[in-house]
């Protein structure tokens, strides 16, 4: 409390040191009529730039000319404050606001409130509360919201989260604004928006260069390389990156069209296609901004201020229809657990498939936009959780993305020590406080000589790492070893449902899948003229984060070539096919339909547990089951041969469970 009174007293002294308000009038300047006229003209021009064009820099230039003539006018000082405030130079702006207050504390009914917001922004929460409490009745409701933010801000600072915050460096950041970082799920490619100058880049009406999209990749040492302009995505006006698919093959950008719309582009080789408006999302009269793909790329999360929003901008999703197109009828609001009467912005869907990060002014925070996360649990969004200080500050904290492993976050901030304007920073989360054992002793018994040692521990809470498997692969031709442009289908085996379809990059053959834990997946890679490749990832809810990198060789359909059908499962010690096998069987069926001239052998194999006769019989029956299924589906009997090899053809040592599991398999071989 002492601190507040001291600050208030100190401020009062400063205020009283300023002279009194001087109006722009002939009475005040009887001998400077010409200069007065010029000053008034400058104020008028400044007002025009400010109100009509929203060009705060041009407005400021005119106001400052008037200020040179008369620096002691409360209204002018207030206008200059508003200009600085609008382009985020709050330090400078605050000086003018304080001067306006000292010249005429009643100039504007909101002036106490504005002073409160400035003190709040600079973390002087107690002083801010004082000014909010002295705001006029018209500002009472807003002030009360801010007072709560100040109290919460104090608590959040007391419970600061442990992290390192590092500027991404000069290869990413410049003296202009950089923001909207988005990363591919492997964390190796970064796209961001910058307002830096450059060849053919013009000034926007707000006095800064137009937004453009830049990209950087990590070198072999994990360092970001010099960012380059993504020319094919940029136009003469604003182009800002909003979201990138996990595999980096699709991108969503923002353009100013129709009050602000979202566009989508696809990667062909090393370049993106021409961005196309996402018509299912964009509405003519509303502002669509910020977007993020779900892990399976079947949903886009986006923000819009459309007419049915709960507050200003809300977070929505749009899904694809059966034809794989974004469908306007499948747009839905995330509901009032996420969306408030205030603004929700900059949504990011984590590759874990159930967490979203977003910014909001409406949930409990320490001022401006704060960043929150929420998890989709049993079909419902959990109550948003504030990410805490210092990720969140009293300013606007937006465009936060979390790395796939949950250890790093990226965001833009104008904190001191950067390269100028907003810079992109990486937050390394250190998790909850580590354990410390405090040592304290008491003479618990009145007559005991030795004190009683009482170690007190502050135990850490386990950090919950995202539960997902990041599958990074390159598809190549078995013979030529050249990358292949192939289709990657992701199945939920339990539900026998095709979850998503991806494509490998045309030039590199690379793909990247995020497989959230809690499902039994099949990943099938197909290409016309090749045998498909299937893999099984049975990931229970508890499966922890892992990254798998693979090179997958597709085999051309030729006589003698064979593949393992990794997703065919039987009941234990029986030849009854389990329902989880259906997706794989249907793929075999499709392959046979697409290639009507081939004849195949379906073979059953076992491990070496049990007698040879028993295993031979079991493997033969299992091969028969597969063949019978295909015949029932319509494949001609003469194209299929079922053979049971028992344990005669192991592909791994039978000495380990892992080896035995590999040996228990069904194979598909082209024989004619």
């Amino acid at each position, binding site marked *: 409390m002492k601190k507040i009174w001291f600050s208030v007293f100190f401020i009062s002294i400063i205020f009283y040191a300023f002279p009194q308000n001087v109006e722009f009038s002939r009475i005040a300047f009887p001998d400077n009529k010409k200069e007065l006229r010029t000053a008034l003209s400058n104020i008028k021009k400044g007002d025009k730039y400010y109100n009509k064009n929203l060009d705060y820099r041009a407005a400021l230039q005119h106001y400052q000319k008037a200020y040179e003539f008369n620096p002691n006018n409360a209204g002018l000082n207030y206008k200059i404050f508003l200009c600085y405030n609008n382009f985020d130079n709050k330090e400078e702006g605050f000086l003018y606001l304080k001067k306006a207050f000292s010249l005429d504390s009643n100039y504007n009914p909101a002036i106490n409130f504005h002073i409160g917001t400035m003190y709040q922004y600079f973390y002087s929460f107690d002083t801010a509360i004082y000014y909010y409490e002295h705001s006029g009745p018209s500002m009472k409701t807003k002030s009360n919201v801010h007072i709560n933010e100040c109290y919460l801000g104090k608590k959040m600072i007391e419970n600061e989260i442990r992290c390192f915050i590092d500027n991404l460096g000069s290869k990413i950041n410049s003296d202009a604004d950089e923001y909207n970082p988005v990363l591919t799920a492997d964390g190796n490619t970064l796209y961001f928006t910058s307002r830096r100058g450059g060849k053919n880049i013009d000034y926007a009406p707000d006095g800064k260069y137009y937004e453009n999209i830049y990209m950087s990749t990590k070198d072999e040492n994990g360092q970001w390389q010099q960012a380059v302009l993504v020319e094919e995505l940029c136009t003469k006006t604003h182009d800002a990156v909003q979201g990138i698919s996990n595999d980096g093959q699709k991108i969503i950008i923002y353009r100013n069209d129709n009050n602000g719309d979202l566009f989508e582009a696809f990667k062909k080789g090393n370049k993106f296609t021409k961005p196309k408006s996402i018509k299912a999302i964009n509405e003519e009269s509303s502002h669509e901004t910020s977007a993020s793909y779900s892990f399976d790329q079947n949903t886009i999360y986006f923000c819009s201020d459309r007419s049915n929003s709960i507050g200003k901008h809300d977070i929505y999703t749009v899904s694809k229809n059966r034809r794989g197109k974004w469908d306007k009828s499948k747009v839905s609001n995330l509901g009032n657990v996420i969306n408030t009467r205030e603004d929700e912005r900059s949504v990011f869907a984590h590759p874990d498939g159930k967490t979203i990060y977003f910014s909001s002014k409406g949930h409990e925070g320490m001022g401006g936009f704060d960043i929150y996360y929420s998890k989709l649990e049993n079909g419902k969004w959990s109550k948003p959780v504030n990410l805490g200080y210092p990720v969140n500050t009293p300013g606007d904290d937006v465009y936060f993305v979390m790395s796939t492993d949950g250890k790093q976050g990226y965001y833009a901030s104008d904190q001191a020590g950067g390269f100028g304007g907003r810079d992109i920073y990486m937050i390394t989360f250190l998790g909850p406080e580590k354990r410390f*054992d*405090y040592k304290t002793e*008491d003479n618990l018994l009145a007559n005991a000589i030795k*004190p009683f040692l009482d170690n007190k521990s502050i135990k850490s809470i386990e950090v919950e790492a995202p539960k997902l498997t990041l599958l990074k692969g390159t598809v190549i031709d078995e013979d030529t070893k050249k990358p292949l442009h192939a289709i990657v289908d992701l199945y939920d085996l339990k539900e026998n449902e095709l979850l998503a379809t991806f494509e490998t990059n045309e030039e590199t053959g690379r793909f990247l899948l995020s497989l959230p834990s809690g499902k039994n997946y099949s990943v099938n890679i197909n290409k016309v003229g090749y045998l498909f490749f299937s893999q099984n990832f049975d990931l229970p809810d508890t499966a922890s984060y892992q990254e798998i990198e693979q090179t997958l060789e597709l085999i051309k359909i030729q006589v003698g070539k064979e593949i393992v059908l990794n997703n065919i499962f039987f009941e234990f010690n029986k030849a009854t096919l389990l329902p989880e096998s259906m997706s794989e069987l249907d793929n075999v069926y499709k392959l046979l339909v697409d290639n009507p001239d081939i004849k195949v052998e379906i073979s059953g194999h076992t491990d070496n547990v049990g007698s040879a006769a028993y295993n031979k019989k079991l493997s033969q029956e299992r091969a028969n089951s597969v063949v019978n299924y295909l015949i029932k589906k319509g494949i001609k009997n003469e194209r299929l041969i079922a053979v049971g090899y028992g344990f005669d053809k192991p592909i791994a040592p039978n000495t380990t469970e892992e080896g035995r599991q590999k040996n228990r398999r069904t194979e598909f071989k082209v024989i004619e």
Partner: protein
Amino acid sequence: MKRKSILIALFIVSLLSAIGQKKDKVIVIKSDQNNAEYLYNDAVKSYNEKNFSEAIERLQLSIKENDTLPAPHFLLGVIHREMNKKQISIQSFLKYIELSTIKDTAFYIIAQIYNEENKPDSALMFLKSCTDHNPNFCQAHYLKGVINFEKSYYDEAIHHFSKAIEINSENSDVYNDRGSTYRLLEKYEDALNDYDKAIVLNKKAIYYNNRGSLKVKMEKFDEAIDDYTSAIVLDYNYYLAINNRGMAKLGIKDYTGAIHDFNLCLEKNKDYYASISNRGIAYYKIKKYKEAIEDFDYILTINPSDASTYLHRGNTKEMIRDNEGACQDWQKAAELGIEEAKKYIKNQCEN
């Protein structure tokens, strides 16, 4: 005759003070004109003059004259105990018990000796004999409580402390000790009531300190600080209370105040390493990592196998981005048995 009576009375008073017994039975020696009693009374006089060898000599002569008198055996037991000849002392009390009909005090003293000899089971056996003979022997119940407390039989301890309080509700130490027992059983409200009662009966620094520590456990840090301050006012050199107050200040995130207390504690007892460790943690909290590491380094020079200090130093090195150093320290902490350190290694060192 008058002189003899005075000597006997003096002996009884000194005996009572020797065994710390307040209201229990008094050993009465009837005065006769025989030689044994004269010798005994001379021995009492020598004992009071702290001339133990002369007293023993007189007592042995007295026993030689008449070995059926219990009092000389009792006094022999008392003197040998004071001379730290505990086995002879016990033998003398046992002889006394053989001869006397009033046995409770002797049983109690034997129990005290066994307890001092760190033989709690033998002590408890004699305490049982004591209370069998005299169920209202308050000090015996109290000692049973203390021994059970030390054996970590807290429910038993509470039973005996409660019995002692039933007999004498004015003994503040018993309330304190029962309060401490409740505290270990995490029955904080019961503990608080007992500490309150002890303080009402007798304002001792130790009681305030213990109540302060209880309030820390109850996360009433401001009240804890008040209690520790009261303890320190009563005993300015009570360094444990000063350290504990620093701890309570950590609880209210007054890290600078905590460091001040840890420094004050170390002024009182420069070898109190707990306070150096706590100060290191407080430095960590205010991000003075260099100072924190200096404190942890110092402790490790004194005790190179202090597991928690390796953990603390590792945690601090993490914050100065010395990941290699942090991992080495966590490794050492893990080797010394700290499970959490293994988790830190798994999460942050195995890549």
